[in-house]
């Protein structure tokens, strides 16, 4: 490990001033589950390490002005145990309980997961489905951008060297909205995402699809929306049969996204099962199954 100067700010303000000062060569450590490995192995060689894990003001779950707001330092475990997540955000719950291992969920934060922007990351997919935005702060001010704009793939998320991601937020789902999420990994625990499917549906009063978002994870350098599927879902009645009529389009989307990858052979099949589980979750949330 290359020697570095260690900073442990206790407030966002303090962290931002350290970032401004040391942006030329620093690493931010939140949960550390990715960055500490990179520092230890010499992949990252920062002169300054800013450990933000002690900033308690960045740990919260709240609903405010119609938005669900999650502090960047919320760990996967803290979200799993949070009554609001359990009750109102079943797809986020489904996501966080399948991250890494208990030890990783106890350390890993959603802010780190989003900034790390791994191809096989867990939470960026579901955040895109929820229509999330990220809040980026620096001593110069605050920027808010959609997670779609933010996440341009590994090592290319749109954060500036002096910025800190402080919050992930998205519209609080209403009673006519539901989100499903299903992850395929190689085993139950300690598995990165091989393929993830996440679906958002807004329904009409007579139980048809008014609006839809379909996101595939781990078939592109960042979670990918599938406009063709979103269009196909619109207007369909909310029945298992009707929704599953779109399954061939999931296969098509995977085939098109990773046509030259060896994994396409099983991912284009697996995606149907994952999509079916998402539809089941959504129908269950709507009380239609």
């Amino acid at each position: 490990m290359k020697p570095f100067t260690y900073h442990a700010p206790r407030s966002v303000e303090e962290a931002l001033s350290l970032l401004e000062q040391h942006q030329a060569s620093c690493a931010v450590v939140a949960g550390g589950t990715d960055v500490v490995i990179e520092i230890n192995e010499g992949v990252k060689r920062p002169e300054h390490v800013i450990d933000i894990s002690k900033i308690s003001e960045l740990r919260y779950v709240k609903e405010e002005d119609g938005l669900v707001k999650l502090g960047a330092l919320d760990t996967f475990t803290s979200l799993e145990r949070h009554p609001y997540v359990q009750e109102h955000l079943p797809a986020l719950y489904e996501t966080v309980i399948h991250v890494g291992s208990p030890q990783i969920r106890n350390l890993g934060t959603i802010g780190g997961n989003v900034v790390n922007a791994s191809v096989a990351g867990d939470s960026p997919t579901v955040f895109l489905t929820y229509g999330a935005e990220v809040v980026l702060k620096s001593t110069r001010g605050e920027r808010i951008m959609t997670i779609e704009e933010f996440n341009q793939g590994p090592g290319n998320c749109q954060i500036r060297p002096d910025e800190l991601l402080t919050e992930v937020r998205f519209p609080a789902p209403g009673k006519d909205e539901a989100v499903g999420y299903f992850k395929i990994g190689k085993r139950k625990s300690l598995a990165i995402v091989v393929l993830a499917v996440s679906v958002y549906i807004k329904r009409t009063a007579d139980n048809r699809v008014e609006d839809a978002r379909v996101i595939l994870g781990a078939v592109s350098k960042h979670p990918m929306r599938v406009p063709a599927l979103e269009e196909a879902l619109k207007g369909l009645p909310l029945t298992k049969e009707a929704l599953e009529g779109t399954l061939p389009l999931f296969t098509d989307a995977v085939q098109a996204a990773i046509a030259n990858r060896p994994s396409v052979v099983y991912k284009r099949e697996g995606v149907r099962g994952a999509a079916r589980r998402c539809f089941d979750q959504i129908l269950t949330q709507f009380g239609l199954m």
Partner: protein
Amino acid sequence: MEQITIRFNLNGRDVSVQADPNKRLVDFLREDMGMLSVKEGCGEGECGACTVIYNGEAVTSCLMLAGQVEGGSVITLEGVGKENGELDEIQQAFVEAGAVQCGYCTPGMILSAKALLDRNPKATHEEIRRAMSGNLCRCTGYSKIIQAVEMARDAKGGAAV
């Protein structure tokens, strides 16, 4: 390199130590604090051998920097036995169930089990399996480890209903 002062509670004792900030928690605990029960396996958070309990939760100490425990509490296997020198129920159960072969994963296994049972004394079979899922063992095949945790739960009086 400027040393930092780390104040934390280690196995029930408040300590204040001057340490090199360029260390992972696993190295700090072994090299500076002499906690040799903490084993490094993969160094990437995948195997669970270096598990310790930090503020009541199981964590892999290869993924933390030493300075991060400032103000917190850490439990290693050295802090698990009873004050009179007897084994804790979990350790005793590992012995009785034959849940130990080479032993390298055992400290981490016992600490994951302790973090679970401290928080959830009536943990079910499935909850135990999930809580232990971040600890790999290449010898035993896991059955006896899960069985040991169930025995420990029962011995502590938390039998599942």
